[in-house]
C-alpha cells in the first residue's frame, strides 16, 4: 500500500501561516464599524414617527381645537407621503450599503468547510491508494488557509475599492438623511409642540376651567403630552448624531483605505465605532 508523506514545503508553508492570518484583523475592524453602522441606521425603523403620522396628528389636533366631530377624518397628506417616500429611498440605500460592507468584511463569509474534500480523500473508495489521516488533515488545513488568505486579499482589495467609490455619495446621502431626521422631521415636532402650547394657553386664558381639579388636570395633561413630543425629539436627535458619527467613521475608512492591512486602522476607527455604539445604547434606553 502506498503512503503519502508531507514534504518539507508543506511544513514551511504551515509555519508561515500566522503571517497570513495577521491581515484578518482589519477586515474585522471594517466589519465591526459597518455592523454598528447598520444597527444604528436601522433604528430609523424603530422610530414611531413619520411625516404622514405628523400630518394625521395635525388633522386630529385641528379637529380637537375646533371641536369637530366627524364620522371619518378627512385629511390630505399627499405632500407628507412624498416626503416619507424620499426618506425611505435614502434610508434603504444607506442601510443596503452598510449591510453589504458588513457581510463582505465578515470572516464567516470565507470560513470554507473542507469536510467534503477530507471525506473524499480518506474514503475507502479510493481503493489501493491510502492517504494518512494526519496528511489529509494537514492538506485540509493548508488548503483552507491558503484559500482564506487569497480570498481575504481579494476581499480587502474589493473593500478598498468600494470604500473609495462610495465615500463621496455616501457622505451626501448620510448628510441629507441626517438633515431629514434631525432638522425636518424633528422640526415638524417643534410645530406640534407650539400647537399644543396654544391649545392649552387658550383654555387657560379663556377661563373655561373652573375647579382646581380641572386646572391641575389640564396642566398635567399638557406636560404629559409635551414630554411625549420631547422624547420623540430626543430619539430623532440621537439618530441624527449617529448618522454624523457614521459619516465621520466612513471618512476615516476612506482616508486610510490604502492602509486597510495595517493594524493602526483599528485605533483610527475605534472611537467612531464606540461613539456609534454608545448612541445605539442611548437610543435603546429611550425605547425601553
Amino acid at each position: 500500500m502506498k503512503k503519502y508523506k508531507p514534504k518539507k514545503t508543506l511544513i514551511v508553508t504551515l509555519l508561515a501561516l500566522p503571517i497570513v492570518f495577521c491581515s484578518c484583523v482589519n477586515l474585522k475592524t471594517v466589519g465591526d464599524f459597518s455592523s454598528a453602522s447598520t444597527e444604528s441606521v436601522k433604528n430609523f425603523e424603530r422610530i414611531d414617527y413619520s411625516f404622514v403620522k405628523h400630518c394625521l396628528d395635525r388633522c386630529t389636533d385641528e379637529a380637537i381645537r375646533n371641536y369637530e366631530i366627524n364620522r371619518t377624518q378627512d385629511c390630505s397628506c399627499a405632500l407628507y407621503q412624498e416626503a416619507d417616500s424620499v426618506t425611505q429611498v435614502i434610508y434603504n440605500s444607506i442601510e443596503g450599503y452598510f449591510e453589504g460592507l458588513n457581510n463582505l468584511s465578515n470572516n464567516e463569509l470565507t470560513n470554507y468547510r473542507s469536510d467534503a474534500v477530507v471525506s473524499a480523500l480518506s474514503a475507502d473508495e479510493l481503493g489501493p491508494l491510502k492517504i494518512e489521516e494526519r496528511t489529509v488533515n494537514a492538506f485540509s488545513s493548508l488548503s483552507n488557509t491558503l484559500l482564506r488568505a487569497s480570498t481575504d486579499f481579494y476581499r480587502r482589495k474589493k473593500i478598498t475599492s468600494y470604500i473609495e467609490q462610495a465615500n463621496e455619495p455616501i457622505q451626501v446621502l448620510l448628510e441629507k438623511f441626517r438633515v431629514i431626521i434631525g432638522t425636518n422631521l424633528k422640526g415638524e415636532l417643534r410645530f406640534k409642540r407650539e400647537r399644543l402650547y396654544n391649545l392649552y394657553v387658550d383654555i387657560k386664558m379663556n377661563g373655561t376651567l373652573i375647579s382646581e381639579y380641572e386646572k391641575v388636570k389640564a396642566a398635567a395633561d399638557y406636560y404629559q403630552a409635551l414630554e411625549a413630543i420631547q422624547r420623540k425629539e430626543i430619539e430623532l436627535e440621537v439618530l441624527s448624531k449617529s448618522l454624523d458619527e457614521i459619516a465621520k467613521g466612513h471618512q476615516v475608512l476612506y482616508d486610510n483605505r490604502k492602509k486597510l492591512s495595517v493594524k493602526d486602522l483599528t485605533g483610527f476607527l475605534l472611537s467612531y465605532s464606540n461613539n456609534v455604539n454608545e448612541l445605539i445604547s442611548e437610543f435603546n434606553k429611550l425605547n425601553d
Partner: protein
Amino acid sequence: MANLTSDQANQLSDNFYNLAIALADFRVANWDRLTPEQRKDLSDTQYAVIKCGEDILAYSTTLVMDEVADSLGKINTITKDIKGTIKTLKDIQKGLNVAAGILVLGVAILNRDTMGIGNSIKDVFTTWKAPVD
C-alpha cells in the same frame, strides 16, 4: 428664477416658526385688549402660519430627492457590486463541494464501479444545482 433648495426651504420654515411664536406671544400679552373676534383671527392666522411652516418642511424633504439622485444611483450600483462579490465568495464553497464530488467520481471511474459512477454524477449534479447558502 432659480429653484428653491432644501436648505432654503428649511430657513423659510424657521421663519414661519418664529413668526408663529411671535403671534402667540402677542396674543397672550394683549389678551385683555383684544376683542374675542380679534383673538380668534389672530389664533387662526397663527395656526395657518404653523401649517405653512410644517408643509414647507415636508416640501423641503421632497426637494432632497433631486439633490441626491446622483449619489443614490452611485451607492445602489456599489451595493449591487458588493452583493456580486459576496456571491462569488460563496460560490467558492460550492466549488469545493463540487471538487470533492468529482474526486469520488474519478475514483469510481478508475475502479470501473458502474453504480458508483451513476451515484457520483448524481451527487455532483445535485451539489452544483444546490443554492448558495
